[in-house]
């Protein structure tokens, strides 16, 4: 890791540290030290270990997963405006989450709320994997996946899944509608160590494996054939990246709901600052994405305290204007090149 990566790691640790202190109940650094040394009351212990720490770690994992997957997909498709949505992950997760919310709420809510939560997550995860597999199969002709046909397949599959979700939303009652809306807004509240024990390994393993293809992604920037001339098995790389992205992003949004713009904003910010070299871009995206989502969550817990703003609102609020700025900047540049 370069010194820049250590800088970002420091940022992440600091933002998690701050995150442990702020919220509906404010703590001081001294209180936090007390909690770490076991010298605090039960309420503070519980707040830090069972509520804030899992939540912040979940935000960090999800931010890392989304940002790194975004960077990888942009490189693979050689398109600066691509993100995992392009291979149908989000629409599929959404459809399956809506299916779970519409049909299973009444049965499962009677058992326990956490079982319902787990079922929604499982459904969303399956949906993400299924749609991205479908998009890959459609876009993959003659054993050679074509970037253009994959993007078109992604749009078509997303539109179809969106229509099905729309129908289910239309049929749903008031309370289901509210649940569905909140799911699409995204949130890391209610994080548990149980969730972390599932999402954590998937995200960490996935990001580690994606990082191993960093050089191939660099070579693919010059064109797929060019990468093959350098000795890379481009199709195998493509399959790996798409499968890993579907796994990582699917796992992330299945527990948090839709959190937009992280995968777009973070890699671009880093490209502008430090260049496109994927050997450092991927890991730095993961670290900055993690910090970004932790900081966004810190704001979401303090702006309207004691209530909470869904985190997806905040990321889109920051991400969308940045996206527009990026578009305008690219237009201006293409005028002058």
């Amino acid at each position: 890791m370069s010194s820049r990566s250590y800088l970002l790691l420091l940022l992440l640790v600091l933002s998690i540290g701050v995150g442990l202190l702020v919220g509906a109940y404010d703590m001081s650094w001294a209180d936090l030290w007390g909690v770490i040394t076991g010298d605090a009351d039960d309420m503070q212990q519980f707040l830090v270990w069972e509520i804030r720490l899992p939540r912040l770690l979940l935000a960090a994992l999800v931010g890392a997963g989304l940002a790194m997957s975004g960077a990888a997909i942009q490189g693979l498709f050689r398109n600066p405006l691509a993100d995992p949505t392009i291979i149908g992950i989000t629409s599929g997760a959404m459809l399956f989450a809506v299916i779970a919310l519409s049909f299973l709420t009444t049965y499962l809510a009677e058992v326990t709320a956490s079982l319902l939560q787990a079922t929604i997550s499982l459904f969303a995860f399956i949906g993400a994997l299924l749609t991205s597999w479908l998009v890959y199969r459609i876009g993959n002709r003659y054993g050679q996946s074509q970037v253009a046909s994959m993007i078109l397949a992604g749009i078509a599959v997303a539109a179809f899944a969106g229509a099905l979700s729309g129908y289910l939303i239309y049929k749903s009652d008031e309370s289901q509608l509210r649940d569905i809306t909140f799911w699409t807004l995204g949130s890391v509240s209610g994080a548990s160590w149980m969730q972390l024990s599932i999402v954590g390994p998937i995200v960490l393993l996935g990001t580690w494996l994606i990082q191993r293809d960093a050089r191939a992604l660099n070579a693919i920037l010059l064109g797929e054939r060019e990468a093959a001339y350098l000795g890379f098995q481009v199709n195998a790389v493509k399959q790996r990246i798409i499968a890993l992205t579907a796994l990582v992003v699917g796992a992330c949004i299945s527990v948090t709901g839709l959190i937009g713009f992280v995968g777009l904003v973070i890699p671009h910010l880093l490209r502008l600052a430090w260049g496109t070299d994927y050997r450092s871009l991927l890991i730095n995206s993961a670290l900055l994405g993690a910090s970004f989502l932790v900081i966004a969550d810190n704001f979401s817990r303090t702006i309207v305290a004691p209530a909470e703003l869904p985190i997806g609102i905040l990321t889109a609020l920051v991400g969308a204007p940045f996206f527009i700025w990026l578009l305008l900047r690219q237009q201006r540049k293409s005028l002058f090149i």
Partner: protein
Amino acid sequence: MIRVQDLSFKRGGKEILSKLNFQAAAGEISVILGKNGAGKSTVLNCLCGNFNDYEGTINWDGQDLKNFSLKEQAKRRAVLAQSMELSFQLSVYDVIEMGCYGQYDRFSSKERRQLIEEVANQFQLSSFLDRDFLSLSGGEKKRVLLAKCLIQLKVGAITEKRQYLLLDEPTAALDLEQQNLLLQFIKELVRKEGLGVIAVLHDLNLAAQLADQLILLKQGKVHTCGSPEQVLQPAIIQDVFDIDCLIQRHPSLDCPLITTLPYAERNSTFAPATGPTQGDRTPLTHPAAS
């Protein structure tokens, strides 16, 4: 030595190459010529490993090309492709460094930097290393990619002795100065590093200056193969390119000089009628006409 034996290739039921035979030696420059659609790019694609569903054999220094993995091929040849697509900003240094990727772990980052600076110097690119690749001119981009190819061959040379450079219309869209510069560099590579070069070219005169061997393709077959002096003759060029030409000796270089004759002079029925705009023009007289 690359031996192409009975190479045939079909796409969509149409035969693009039929029973092609030729050889290309290491340390020599072989240039493939022919009209559009004659199969030049297809031959090169087969040699590059892009198409694997050809018939016949490509014998690569004694082994069948199909036995080589992509990694093995990358050690034995580098390809200078025609298009240069890049959607993100990368520095020239980063692009040249990609040549090292095949043997990445064998070198420390310091060794890589040394190698890259050495090659950049050789191609007059030292002052470009920190620049954005996309901001370069067409000729500079080609030189950067050629430097990347040379690095790829240099790091591959750890295990492979004979190596080849495959060029797909390297001078297309370059101005005259850049064309000459690039060809000088390519000649130098053959002389100094002993590379074998197989190039697809369009310009007969550039081909005559560059090549040790010319391979003329017509409708997916080898029409003629030999030294520029043997191959570049009016009757052959008429047959392959459907154009009349005049062959002289180049006044300063030791190679043939080809001057093509306008279509109108060959077939008077296609000569433009003497209209009002052309009436007061002195008709051009070609040396061949006298």
